[in-house]
């Protein structure tokens, strides 16, 4: 969180900072820096925890509506207390550790997973003055911390001493490592254009409007739109969400690496999955959707964190919508999609961005040429690779069916 805000800003914008200062004033000077950090951590965990709780409810409600049913509506008003009922259920359930399981690793896996997920929240700028930790290489830190979750998933599969869990963990590893590459490659263009790895710097680079209505968000450029889509597809796979939910494919692997987990450890895995989803959505907002910037100039009176929340909720709704729509991929389709489609497209996108940066000084009608070339560089490889992706693989003829 930044130092004192300019007094000209609206009170709502400064409210979180003022509240923190007011709380810190109760403490003696030497303890304040520590209390400040603890306060930020507590606030982050509270907001993330509540978001997780209500996200599970929202997911069930939206899935229900898409399937033409109301979803949970018995606990509290419109089912609003459902997450808390679920939490109590999870807490009171028996925690079973298999006899042959490695007890230390079995316990450590959910803890490591949740720790890695929570770490990623540190560098996301939630508002103009709401950055928990300002790092010069914030984006790098984000993906490094996020990659730790893969280790935890394999730890869970290995420690369970269960063949389904182990198979699922191997799959999860194959999937997460496959999709790590397009995920990282898809944000490199952003770094190339903004020239910084700091999340605050990237958001600052997207400030302002073209012709007073089109924001300078990176998603409104040809390479930015392509990068955003690549990022979101990889994020779906990285957070084990449908249609890439192979590690916990119920029909094949019981519950994957979660098979031998029960009670609150199981809840922690779920929490980590949703935290990962929220963190990746937050990163997508930061990298491509202008972070906390308002979409139109006259909407600046709305506090920046509200804009960030609106954008992240929109992306999360997209996650749920996609889950309700798409069936699960097979493991060979999954890896082929990553290596033969997403990685080449991400590499081509890097070239497109390089062209975009080099053609920055072009003026007048050359700007039109710049857009045309960039669009062609985005659409051409997509069409060509898209045709190649399914070639020779379908439609499938079932000879004995």
């Amino acid at each position, binding site marked *: 969180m930044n130092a004192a805000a300019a007094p000209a800003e609206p009170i709502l914008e400064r409210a979180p900072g003022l509240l923190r200062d007011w709380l810190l004033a109760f403490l003696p000077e030497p303890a304040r820096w520590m209390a400040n950090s603890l306060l930020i951590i507590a606030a982050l965990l509270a907001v993330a925890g509540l978001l997780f709780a209500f996200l599970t409810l929202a997911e069930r409600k939206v899935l229900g509506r898409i399937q033409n049913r109301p979803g949970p509506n018995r606990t509290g008003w419109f089912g609003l207390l459902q997450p808390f009922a679920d939490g109590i259920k999870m807490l009171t359930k028996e925690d079973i550790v298999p006899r042959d399981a490695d007890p230390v690793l079995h316990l450590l896996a959910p803890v490591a997973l949740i720790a890695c997920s929570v770490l990623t929240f540190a560098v996301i700028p939630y508002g103009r003055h709401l950055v928990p930790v300002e790092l010069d290489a914030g984006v790098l830190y984000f993906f490094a911390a996020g990659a730790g979750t893969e280790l935890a998933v394999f730890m869970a599969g290995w420690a369970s001493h269960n063949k389904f869990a182990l198979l699922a963990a191997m799959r999860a590893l194959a999937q997460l490592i496959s999709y790590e590459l397009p995920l990282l490659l898809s944000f490199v263009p952003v770094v190339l254009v903004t020239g910084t790895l700091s999340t605050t710097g990237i958001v600052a680079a997207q400030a302002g409007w073209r012709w007073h209505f089109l924001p300078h968000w990176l998603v409104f450029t040809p390479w930015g739109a392509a990068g955003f889509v690549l990022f979101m597809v990889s994020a779906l796979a990285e957070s084990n969400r449908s249609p890439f939910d192979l590690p916990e494919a119920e029909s094949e692997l019981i519950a994957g690496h979660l098979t031998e987990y029960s009670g609150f450890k199981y809840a922690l895995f779920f929490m980590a999955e949703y935290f990962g989803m929220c963190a990746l959505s937050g990163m997508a907002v930061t990298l491509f959707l202008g972070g906390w910037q308002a979409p139109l100039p006259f909407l600046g009176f709305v506090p920046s964190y509200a804009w960030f929340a609106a954008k992240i909720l929109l992306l999360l709704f997209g996650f749920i919508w996609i889950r309700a*729509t798409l069936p699960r991929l097979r493991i060979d389709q999954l890896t082929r999609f990553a290596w033969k489609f997403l990685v080449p497209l991400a590499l081509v996108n890097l070239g497109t961005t390089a062209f975009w940066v080099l053609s920055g000084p072009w003026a007048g009608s050359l700007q039109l040429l710049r857009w045309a070339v960039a669009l062609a560089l985005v659409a051409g490889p997509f069409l060509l690779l898209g045709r190649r992706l399914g070639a020779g693989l379908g439609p499938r003829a079932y000879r004995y069916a």
Partner: protein
Amino acid sequence: MLGTGLLQGLAVTARNFLGSFHDPRRFVTTQYPEERTALPEAYRNFPFLISENADDPMGTLRCVACQICEKECPPQCIYIEKSKDRKTDANGKLQLYPAVFAIDLSVCMGCQICVEVCPFDAIKMDQVFELAATERFAGLVHGREALAKPNSYFRQIRLAEAREVDDRLAADRRVAEEKARAAAAAKAAPKPAPGAPAP
């Protein structure tokens, strides 16, 4: 083109999502304990015993404890004990009645064979499905008190069948009355001489 099918799928789910808010034909869920859908007339689950009179259900059971249903029941879930004495039934005839009539609902499979074999139209299929019990064994064995329901209830749940049964029973009763009257008349009249032609 790659991705068009994906967008079509997303459009379908979006249509369902929005449609569920304004189109009642799409959104068909009934909020069960508060609202109920009408059961179709042919719906059946477990048998019940018909009594003629709602005020005295045990006294007016149609069942005469013939035990045909008990013997025919494929899963053997009916248990009947005959009475020691006899009571007059609706036709004024002295009949046995079931001292014990029990159906184990956890065994009954709702096949309706007891209904089909009953010559007295005494057992019919019920439509009550809220039969949860707090005790696993005794709670699901229903005795004759729990099974007896008046004929008016049968008319309520399955009118067409009830009307047909009532008409048939009334016709039988008329025939029986006429026969009884004829028998009484024959008894009152002098015995015809043997060898004389029948009237």
